[in-house]
């Protein structure tokens, strides 16, 4: 695999963590990674969301809270930090979904600087060269 696309729909701490770790593994192994931020994933990358503690998935109830505690105790790096590591060691790009941007009345200036551009879904799909993962 030399190309990976991640559709990042979720905005809970656990799923963002999983996406970030996947991106870091891909980046480390020379896999060009494109992250398409949409819905809650995009929301997590807003400048005004920076540093805010996000909840774990409600699906997992108390187990999720226990997991969050464990991660903190064991010094697990936060999802944002892991995305930073991924971008640092490899070819990782972040694109914002125009549909969600439009819904939330956002411009590129409202987003974290790592977000490179705003693209429509057709552009995203036509740019896919390898596997697509939906998180």
């Amino acid at each position, binding site marked *: 695999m030399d190309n990976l696309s991640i559709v990042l729909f979720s905005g809970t701490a656990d799923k963002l963590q999983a996406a970030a*770790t996947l991106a*870091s*593994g891909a980046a*480390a*192994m*020379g896999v060009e990674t494109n992250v398409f931020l949409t819905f809650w994933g995009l929301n997590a990358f807003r400048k005004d969301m920076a540093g805010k503690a996000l909840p774990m998935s409600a699906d997992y109830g108390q187990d999720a809270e226990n997991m969050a505690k464990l991660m903190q105790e*064991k*010094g*697990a*790096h936060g999802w944002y930090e*892991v995305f930073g*590591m991924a971008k*640092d*060691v490899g070819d990782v790009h972040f694109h914002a979904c125009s549909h969600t941007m439009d819904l939330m009345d956002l411009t590129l200036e409202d987003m974290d600087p790592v977000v490179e551009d705003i693209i429509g879904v057709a552009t995203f799909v036509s740019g896919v060269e390898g596997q697509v993962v939906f998180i």
Partner: protein
Amino acid sequence: MTTPPITVDREIDARASFCPGPLMELIRAVRESDVDERLAVLSKDPGSRTDIPAWVAKAGHQLLAVEDNEGYARYVVRKAR
């Protein structure tokens, strides 16, 4: 009789760092090193045991040794290119 640890030009203690931290720190350190320099990274992360050799092979460097210690492993790498 145990073999003494291989001496290196640079050692990174990533034992406080959680996965994927140790691998990331190794990659950054290798990038900052010159060809032929030897680096060691200390990791408590069990994922490093497979991740570090996989990355070393992919990136074209040389894994000189994996030294097991109490609660952590020391991965010794030579920057080959």
